[in-house]
C-alpha cells in the first residue's frame, strides 16, 4: 500500500512537471525571434508564400488556441509532426533514442569503471601513489574538453591504428570512442565524489565502533563504509546519466552519431516548434524516471531510507 501511494505521488509529480515544463517551452520558443515558416521558405520566398506555410503549420492561429490544441494532443501522447521535416515527432525521437541511450550507458559505464575503484583506493590509501594518480586523472578529466579528447581518440585509434571507424553508425564499435570521451569527463566528477564521500565515511564513529568490535579492516572498509559512501555517488551518477540522455551534442557532432542531441539542436536552430516541444516533454519524462530509479536504488542499498 505504501508503495502504491508512493507511485501515485510520483506519477502526479511527473504530470505536473511535464505540464509546467511544456507550458514554459511552448511560450518561450514563440517569444524568441525566429519563425519556422521563414526557415522553410528560405531566401527568395514572398510574403504570400510564408503566409501559406504558416497556415499549413497552424502557427497563424491565436496563441491561446495553439496552446490548448497542443495540450489536448499531448494528453494522448500525440506530439504531432515536426514542422521542418514533416515526420512524426515521436518517430524522430524514437529513432534517435537508442543511439543516445547506448552512448550514455557506455559513457556512464566507462566513467564508473574508472572512477569508483580509483576513488575508493584513493580514499583508503590517502596520499599514496594511487591517490595522486586518481587526483591527476580527475584534474585532467575536468580540464580536457570532451570534444578535444574525442578528436585525439579518433586520430589515434581510427586514423593511426584503424581499430575503430572514423565516422558512420551501426554496431557497438561506433560507440566505444565516443563513450570513452564522454565517460572520461564524468569519471573525473564521480572519482572526486567517491573519494570525498569515502574519506568522510571512514572518519565516522561507527567505524571506530566496528574497529573496537574487532572486525577486519577489509570488512569495515569495503562492506560498511563503502555501502554508505556510495549513496551520494549514485545520485550524482544518475543525474549525469539523465543529462547524457538529453543528448551529448558535441560528442555526437565529432563522431557524426545520429543522437538526440543533434536532433534537438537542429530543431532549435530551425525553430521546429513541435519537435522542440516534443523533445522537452520526452527529456522531462526520462529525467523523472531516472530520479525514480535512483530513489529505488537508494532504498535497496540502504534500508535506513525507506520509501515514504
Amino acid at each position, binding site marked *: 500500500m505504501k508503495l502504491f501511494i508512493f507511485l501515485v505521488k510520483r506519477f502526479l509529480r511527473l504530470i505536473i512537471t511535464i505540464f509546467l515544463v511544456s507550458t514554459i517551452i511552448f511560450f518561450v520558443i514563440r517569444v524568441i525571434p525566429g519563425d519556422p515558416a521563414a526557415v522553410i521558405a528560405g531566401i527568395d520566398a514572398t510574403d504570400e508564400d510564408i503566409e501559406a506555410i504558416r497556415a499549413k503549420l497552424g502557427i497563424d492561429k491565436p496563441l491561446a488556441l495553439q496552446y490548448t490544441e497542443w495540450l489536448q494532443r499531448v494528453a494522448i501522447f500525440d506530439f504531432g509532426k515536426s514542422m521542418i521535416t514533416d515526420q512524426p515527432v515521436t518517430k524522430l525521437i524514437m529513432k534517435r533514442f537508442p543511439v543516445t541511450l547506448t552512448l550514455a550507458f557506455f559513457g556512464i559505464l566507462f566513467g564508473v569503471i574508472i572512477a569508483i575503484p580509483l576513488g575508493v583506493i584513493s580514499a583508503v590509501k590517502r596520499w599514496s601513489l594511487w591517490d595522486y594518480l586518481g587526483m591527476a586523472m580527475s584534474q585532467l578529466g575536468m580540464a580536457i574538453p570532451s570534444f578535444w579528447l574525442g*578528436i585525439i581518440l579518433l586520430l589515434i585509434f581510427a586514423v593511426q591504428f584503424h581499430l575503430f571507424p572514423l565516422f558512420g553508425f551501426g554496431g557497438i564499435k561506433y560507440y566505444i570512442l565516443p563513450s570513452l570521451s564522454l565517460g572520461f569527463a564524468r569519471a573525473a566528477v564521480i572519482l572526486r565524489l567517491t573519494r570525498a564521500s569515502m574519506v568522510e565515511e571512514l572518519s565516522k564513529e561507527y567505524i571506530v565502533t566496528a574497529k573496537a568490535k574487532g572486525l577486519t579492516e577489509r570488512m569495515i572498509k569495503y562492506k560498511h563504509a563503502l555501502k554508505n559512501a556510495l549513496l551520494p555517488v549514485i545520485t550524482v551518477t544518475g543525474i549525469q546519466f539523465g543529462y547524457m540522455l538529453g543528448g551529448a551534442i558535441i560528442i555526437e557532432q565529432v563522431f557524426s552519431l545520429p543522437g538526440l542531441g543533434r536532433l534537438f539542436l537542429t530543431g532549435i536552430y530551425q*525553430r521546429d516548434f513541435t519537435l522542440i516541444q516534443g523533445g522537452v516533454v520526452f527529456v522531462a519524462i526520462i529525467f523523472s524516471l531516472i530520479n525514480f530509479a535512483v530513489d529505488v536504488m537508494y532504498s535497496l542499498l540502504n534500508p535506513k531510507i525507506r520509501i515514504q
Partner: protein
Amino acid sequence: MKNVTRIILLTGLLLLLFSGLTFATGQEEERALNVSLSGNPDTLDPQKTSGTLTFQVLKSIYDTLVEPDENGKIVPALAESWDVSSDSLEWTFHLRKGVVFHNGDSFTSKDVKATFQRILSKDTASPKAKEFSAISEIDTPDDYTVIFKLKTVSAPFLASLASGWGAILPKSLIDSGHDFASKPVGTGPYSLVEWVRDSRVVLQKNPKYWIAGHPKIDKVIINIIPERSVAVQGMLSGQLDIAFRINKEDIPTLKKDPNIRIEKDLSALILVMSMNCSRPPLNDLRVRQAINYAIDKQKVLDIAYGGGKIVNTFMDYSNPYYKDFHFYSYNPDKARELLKEAGVGKDTEIQMFLPQNYEAHVKAGEMYQEMLTKVGLNVKIKLVDWSTWISDVYRQAKYDLTVIGHTGKLDPDGTLAGYGGPKRYVRWVNDECKSLIDQARVTIGFEKRKALYDKALEIMAREVPFMYLGSPYVYNAIRNDVVGFRVTPKLDTLDFRWTEFKK
C-alpha cells in the same frame, strides 16, 4: 568487492578488444563511392523546402523536364524537346519514352501534370510554388506530350523547370499521399536505399536509367559529417572518395597525400554587405558609397572566404547576363571625405547583424567593422542565429548592415525579382530599376532581356543597396582514381551520373 572490480575491468577490456577485432575483420564488398556532406537535408520532398542540402541529395533521385548542362545551358532531360508558341504563352514539351520510375511506373504526361498540380496546391504550401504561378492550365493531349498554358509571359519559366524543385514525381504515389519526405521515388539515376538522418544517405544505381550506360557506379554513400577535421581524416585514411566543399585551411594537409587532388571552382554565390536603405544614416547615398570605398575587397575575400574573385554586380561571373561596373574601388580617403560631407561620425551607431553559424560571414563582418572604423564609422556587431537572421533581418529588415551570400540562379529574374520595390530586405526603393526588372520578366529573347538587366544592374551598382564583394572559390577534395564528378552550375547539386572509378 575486489572481485567485482576485477570482473568489471575485464569485461570492459574484452569489450574494447572485441569491438576492435570485429571491425578489423569486416569483409570487402564491391566498392561504393563515399562522399562527405557537412549537413543533413531537412526533407527529401523536393516541393516542401528551399534547402540546398535537400536538392544536393535529390539530384541523384529525381529528374526534371529540362536541366542545366555543365555550362549552365538548359538542355533536354525528361523532355526530349520543346516548342514555344509565338506569343510565348504556350509551352509544349515532348516527353522521353521508356522512362521508368523507381517503383516501376512508366513515366508519362500524367505524372508531369500531377507533379505541378501538387506543387501549386495550397495543401502542399510549397515555398517554390510562386515560380510556377504563371501556369494557368496543363494539358496532356497524349501520354508523351505536355502543354503548359501560361497566364503571362514568363521568361524564367524554363529555368524553374530545370531547378531541383521542378522534379517529377509519380502520379500514383501523389494520389495515394506517399511520404516523399522520407521515401523519395523518382526517375533519377539512383534510388534511395536508406536515409539514416544525421548519418548517411545510401543510394543504389537505377539500372533502367534513361541515359544508356549511366550511372557507372553501383552504390553511392553520402556521409553526413559535420566535423571538418573528420572529413579531412576520412580523405587521408581512404574512407572517403570525395569531400564536398572543404575549407581552404585544410588544403595543405590534403595535398600531402599524392592520391588526392583538389578541384577548385568559382562559385556562383554573390557575397554582399547588405544595407538597410530605409534607416538613417544609410538612407544617405553618400554613406553607402563611403562604405563601399572603405572596403579592401580582395583582402576580405582572401582572408574570410578562402580566396575569390571581385564582382561588382548582382550577377555571378559565369552568368551570360554578367556585366561588371567599377564605380567604387578601394579608397579610404574618399570614404572619409564623403562621411564628413554627410556629417556621419563616431556618434552614429550602426548595427551590423551577422549570421553566427556562417563562420566565413562572421569573419568578413569583423573585417568590415575594422575597415569601417578606420574611416570613422561606429559599427557594432550583433551575432544572431540563422532563424533569427531570416525572420528578423531578412523578413522584417530589423538591421542596418548585414553580411550574407546570395546563391546563383539559373535565370536572372530569380536573383533580381522584387528589387527596387519596398519589400526586399535592403528596403531600397527605385521605381526605374523595379520596372526594368518587371519588364525583363515578360520579355523573351536574350539580347532584349540583357539590355534591360544591364540598365537595372547599373542602377543597383551605382546606388549601393549592396556592397558587392565578389564570389568565393570553392574546393572539393577528390581521390585520384575517381573521375567525372560534376557539380551542377548555379544549383550546386551533386551529379554522380558521370562519375566512375579509374582502373
